[in-house]
C-alpha cells in the first residue's frame, strides 16, 4: 500500500501526513477494526491534539505515527518518508513510567545523547533540567520524584534528543488537576521556545482546547476522524473567554456530552 502512494503528491508544507490509515487487530480469530480511513496532515511546528473517548484507538494511532506498530493498510509519512520504525528524530513520551528507574534524572535525560562529547552532553542535560524546572533533582532516582516531576523529566529526556516531532500519549493523565494545569502551561512555554511539531493524545476536552492549534476529534471504534477543530485563540488562553467556552461546548456536544452533571 505504501508503494502505491507517490510521495510527490503530498503537500510540501506538511511535516506529518497520514494517508488512508487502517488498523485491524485479530482477537480469537475475530478481526477488530481499530482505525478506519484516517487522513491527517500536520504542519511543521504545529501543536495538534488527538481527542477521543477512552479505548477509541487514539493510542493506537500514535503508536503507528511513532513507528511502533505497522498499519494494516495506508501509511504515515514524515518529511515525505514513510514511517516504518521508531526513529530518534521523533520521540515518544509515554503515558507514565517511561523513565528508566535505574537511572537518575540527569542520566535519564542524557540517555539518548551519549554520542555527544562530554562537555556538550553535560551542557544539554543542564539546559533541559532547568527548562523543565528539575534543578536540584539531578541525582534523584525516579522513585524519589513525584508524578509531575517524573513527567517533566520524561519531557526533558525527549527534548534533549532535539527531535523535530514529539508524540505525547496522555502525558498528564495520571496527575492531579493542579499539577496538570501547571504542566500544560510549561509544555506551551517549551513549545513556544523550541517549536517542535507536537502530536498530543488526550481524552480531556478542556486540555485539548487549552493546548492545541488544531484538535482532531475521533469517533468511537472503529475510530474515524469525526471533525477537525481549529482553535483560533491566541496564547495565553483565557479559560473563561466566550470563544474558549464555545469551542469546548461544541466539541462536547459533538462527542455527546451533556452540559450538566
Amino acid at each position, binding site marked *: 500500500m505504501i508503494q502505491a502512494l507517490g510521495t510527490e503528491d503530498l503537500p510540501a508544507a506538511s511535516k506529518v501526513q497520514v494517508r488512508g490509515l487502517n488498523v485491524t487487530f485479530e482477537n480469537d480469530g475475530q478481526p477488530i477494526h481499530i482505525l478506519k480511513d484516517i487522513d491527517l496532515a500536520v504542519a511543521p511546528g504545529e501543536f495538534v491534539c488527538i481527542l477521543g473517548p477512552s479505548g477509541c484507538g487514539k493510542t493506537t494511532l500514535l503508536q503507528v505515527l*511513532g513507528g*511502533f506498530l505497522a498499519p494494516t493498510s495506508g501509511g504515515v509519512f514524515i518529511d515525505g518518508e514513510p514511517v516504518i*520504525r*521508531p*526513529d*530518534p528524530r*521523533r*520521540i*515518544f513520551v*509515554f*503515558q507514565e*513510567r*517511561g523513565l*528508566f*528507574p*535505574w*537511572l537518575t534524572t540527569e542520566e535519564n535525560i542524557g*540517555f*539518548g545523547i551519549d554520542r555527544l562529547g562530554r562537555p556538550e552532553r553535560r551542557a544539554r542535560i543542564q539546559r533541559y533540567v532547568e527548562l523543565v524546572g528539575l534543578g536540584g533533582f539531578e541525582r534523584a*532516582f*525516579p*522513585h*524519589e520524584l513525584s508524578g509531575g516531576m517524573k513527567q517533566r523529566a520524561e519531557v526533558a529526556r525527549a527534548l534533549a*534528543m532535539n527531535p523535530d516531532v514529539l508524540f505525547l500519549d496522555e502525558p498528564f493523565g495520571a496527575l492531579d488537576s493542579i499539577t496538570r494545569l501547571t504542566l500544560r502551561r510549561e509544555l506551551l512555554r517549551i513549545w513556544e521556545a523550541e517549536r517542535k511539531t507536537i502530536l498530543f493524545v488526550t481524552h480531556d476536552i478542556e486540555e485539548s482546547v487549552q493546548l492545541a492549534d488544531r484538535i482532531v476529534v475521533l469517533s468511537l471504534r472503529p475510530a474515524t476522524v469525526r471533525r477537525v477543530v481549529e482553535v483560533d485563540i491566541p496564547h495565553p488562553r483565557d479559560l473563561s473567554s466566550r470563544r474558549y467556552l464555545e469551542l469546548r461546548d461544541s466539541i462536547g456536544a459533538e462527542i455527546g456530552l451533556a452540559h450538566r452533571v
Partner: protein
Amino acid sequence: MGAGYGTSSDRIAPRMRKAWVSVSGVAILAAAWEMAVRLETGSLLPGPFAVVRAIGELAANGLLWKHLVASLFRVTWGYLLAVLLAVPAGMLLGSTRRPEQAIGPYLEVLRPISPLAWIPIAILWLGVGDQAAIAIIFLASFLPLTLAVKNAVRRIPKVHLQAASNFGLGGAARVRKVIFPAIAPQLIVGLRLTMGIAWLVVVAAEMIAVNSGLGFLIIDARNAGNRYDLVVAGMVLIGMVGLGLDTALLRLERLPALRWGYANASERR
C-alpha cells in the same frame, strides 16, 4: 532519610541492642544444647564445647582449609559456569517466542528432577572427582537461574523496550543499556537463591562423588570412627560459609541503581 537526623550515638544504640539480643539468643541455645547432651548419658552427640574444640582441631591440622577450599573451588566453578551460560540463555528465552516454545517444555520436565539424581550420570560420564561435582553444581544452578532471567526479561515493561527502540538502541547496546539494568534486581535475587542451592548441592555431591570438601569431611568423620563432634563441626562450618555467601550477595541489593526494583523501595530512601 530518617536516620540522618539522629546523632551518631542514637544510631549505634539500636544496633548494640540488636547485637546483644542475637548474642544472648545464641548463648541460651548453646546452654540448652550442652545441658541436653549431659543429661543423655552415652549419647554420641557432641555438645557445643566439643564442637568448638573439633573446629579448633580441624583448623590446627590444616584440614579445615583444605576441605573449605575444595568446596569453595567446586562451587565457584560450577556456579560461575552456570551464571555465564544462564544469563544469555535466559535473555534469549525471555525475549524471543520460538526458542521458548521449542525448549520451554523440556526445561519444565527437567526442573522437578533433583540435581542429586544426576550424581550417577555425572560419575558415569566424568568419573569420581572434581569434574563430576562441578557438573552437578552447574546443573543445579543453571536451570533455576535461566528461568529467573527468562521471567525477569518477560516482565520488562513494554514502555522501556519501546523507549530503547525510539532512542535508536539495537543489539548489544539495547542489552547493555536497557535489558540488563531492567532485570538486574531480579537477577540478583536469582543469584542469591541459586548460590544457596549450589551450596546445598556441593555438600551432597561431595558425600558421593569426591574425597575432599566439607561434605566429605562429614561423611568421613562418621565412617572413620563415629567422630560426631567433627560431623557437627562440618555442619556448623557449612552454615557459616553459606550465611557469608548470602550476606555478600545481599549487599548488592543495596546499590542505589538497584533499589527501585525491590518491593519497599520507596520506604528505604
